[in-house]
């Protein structure tokens, strides 16, 4: 029986004994006849499930009274997480190209775990917002990957947000479609509907705070789990009918929640099931490909700095769309004059000014000087690679702060208020991040002296290195 690992363990008894195959049907419904021990086990587990069960939407199914207390689960597909890969191995000697199905493999029950255990084989995440919002969704993607081993995760994001997925190894396809657009091109809309339906997702997550229209879009994907945020006001009317799980956002702008803006969704994704404990939320991590590192290394070498001996300065005020701000914090860019003041006090390192648009180069050269190191970067991937090779980061509340935390680089984050700082960088000490916030609630009034004080974090990290 070399092939048994492909099947759930409970199938092995009736694989060896074909006569008992007829009992397979009853096995997972009423196993108490066969296995009294398992029965008592299930009984002890049940209350924990009911505690976490949320109130069902009665409109979805008027005859659904929740989980049946008399229901007994056997061991088949009921316990633990899903299998990593359910595809049987290739059979190289088979002339017809069939796979090597193990003995007793029943195609009929292959899809049962999707029902019983709620397996997710394909998952689609629709992320609303730009780079920052997409970056903050990375922990959720990692959590899905951990909770449902072997899941294929696809992403639908806006054109800007999609670029973030250069940094994510867990995503299969990233498709550009702006779900924030309330009036999409009819052609685009129908095309995307058809494409999503054709991909046969088991779970569709959406972080757009949406109403009935967005719910209808999710409904048309025909996924089993359609999960979305809904409006906290009357505009959410009817959205729950078409969704299987809804989270009522605290405000219309989800990004105001800061780093934990997807807390409700993450809680639901990592919820404990019968025998699986609650899945912890992993920290934000990004991965940078070798090619990206090479490209960026060339860029900063041209700008005249060496690896590990520069400090990235990000957050220069510009009307470029590539400034990677959060939608929850609009006051998060500083004019170049302030940056020049801050950069003056950097000792032993070279500041590298990251400009989001080529037209800013002149301004920077004018104010900082002709010999300033300037790197033109618009994509989060390149910014991450630049931060990865740097000694530290000084940035306003942009994706640069999160990227520095993700690569565990020391950073100084400038915030317009202390509250925002706490929201966007929780546990700042653990992340080697110093939050400097403005006293007046406006970023422009930030004290440069405080930033200069904070700069010793780079010296400490240098001494350690």
């Amino acid at each position, binding site marked *: 029986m070399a092939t048994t690992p492909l099947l759930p363990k409970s199938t092995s008894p009736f694989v060896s004994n074909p006569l008992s195959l007829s009992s397979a049907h009853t096995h997972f419904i009423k196993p108490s006849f066969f296995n009294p021990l398992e029965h008592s086990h299930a009984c002890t587990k049940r209350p924990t499930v009911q505690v976490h069960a949320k109130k069902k939407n009665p409109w979805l199914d008027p005859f659904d009274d929740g989980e049946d207390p008399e229901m007994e689960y056997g061991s088949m597909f009921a316990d633990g997480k899903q299998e990593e890969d359910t595809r049987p191995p290739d059979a190289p000697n088979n002339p017809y190209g069939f796979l090597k199905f193990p003995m007793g493999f029943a195609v009929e029950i292959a899809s049962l775990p999707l029902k019983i255990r709620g397996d997710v084989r394909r998952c689609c995440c629709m992320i609303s917002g730009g780079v920052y919002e997409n970056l903050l969704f990375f922990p959720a993607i990692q959590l899905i990957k951990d909770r449902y081993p072997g899941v294929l995760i696809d992403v639908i994001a806006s054109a800007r947000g999609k670029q973030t997925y250069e940094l994510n190894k867990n*995503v299969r396809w990233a498709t550009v479609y702006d779900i924030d657009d309330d009036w999409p091109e009819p052609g685009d809309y129908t095309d995307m509907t058809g494409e999503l339906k054709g991909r046969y997702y088991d779970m569709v997550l959406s972080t757009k705070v949406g109403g009935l229209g967005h719910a209808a879009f999710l409904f048309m994907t025909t996924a089993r789990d359609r999960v979305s945020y809904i409006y906290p006001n009357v505009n959410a009317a009817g959205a729950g009918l078409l969704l299987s799980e809804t989270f009522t956002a605290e405000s219309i702008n989800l990004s105001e929640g800061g780093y934990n803006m997807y807390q409700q969704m993450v809680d639901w994704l990592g919820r404990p099931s019968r025998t699986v404990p609650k899945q912890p939320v992993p920290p934000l991590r990004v991965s940078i490909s070798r090619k990206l590192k090479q490209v960026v290394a060339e860029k900063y070498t041209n700008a005249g700095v060496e690896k590990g001996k520069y400090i990235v300065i990000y957050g220069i005020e510009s009307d470029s769309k590539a400034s990677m701000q959060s939608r929850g914090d609009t006051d998060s860019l500083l004019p170049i004059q302030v940056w020049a003041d801050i950069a003056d006090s950097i000792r032993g390192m070279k500041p590298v000014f990251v400009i989001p648009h080529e037209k800013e180069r002149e301004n920077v050269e004018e104010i900082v000087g002709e010999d300033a190191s300037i790197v033109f970067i618009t994509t989060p991937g390149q910014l991450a690679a630049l931060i990865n090779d740097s000694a530290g980061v000084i940035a306003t509340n942009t994706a640069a702060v999160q990227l520095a935390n993700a690569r565990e680089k020391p950073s100084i984050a400038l915030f317009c208020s202390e509250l925002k700082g706490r929201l966007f960088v929780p546990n700042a000490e653990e992340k080697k991040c110093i939050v400097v916030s403005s006293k007046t609630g406006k970023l422009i009034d930030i004290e440069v002296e405080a930033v200069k004080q904070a700069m010793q974090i780079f010296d400490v990290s240098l001494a350690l290195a």
Partner: protein
Amino acid sequence: MAEAIMSFTIIKPLGHSSLQSTKWDMLHPSSKSLEGSNKKRASLCKVNAFPDWPLTLMAVLVEHAEGQRDLITHKSIWHLSDKAIKNVYAFYMMFTCWGCLFFGATKDPYYDSEVYRGDGGDGTGHWFYEKQEDIEEAARAELWREELIEEIEQKVGGLQELEEAGRK
């Protein structure tokens, strides 16, 4: 005109034999007058385009009068019923529409332009769309493998260190 034809006695040809009788009429216009009486009489023959479909292609009217030459009216109008006319026009319209689309598309520079074909192809007439997405997907898969290899290397390195520490 239709009333004029209808007023004559109409010889209804029997299905398949209609063409033959008409031929006979045309070849021997006076044959019918030989056996008839002196009175003036007339006969009409119709030819159907298809035996079972009422599409009259040709009508031959033979008017016979005593002591005179036979007056032969040879009509080759198509007599189409309303339904047949509708069918013809429907077909004409459908053909026109299809033709506009089909022949219009055969030589459209748009379909050979960079906008339409831009995503690539392998030069054999097989065009790949969404090539960009596939490239990105492959890049991410590569990233995943790189990280996995790094992790394994770290673990192996850690194990080796442990082993060395154990030996010492």
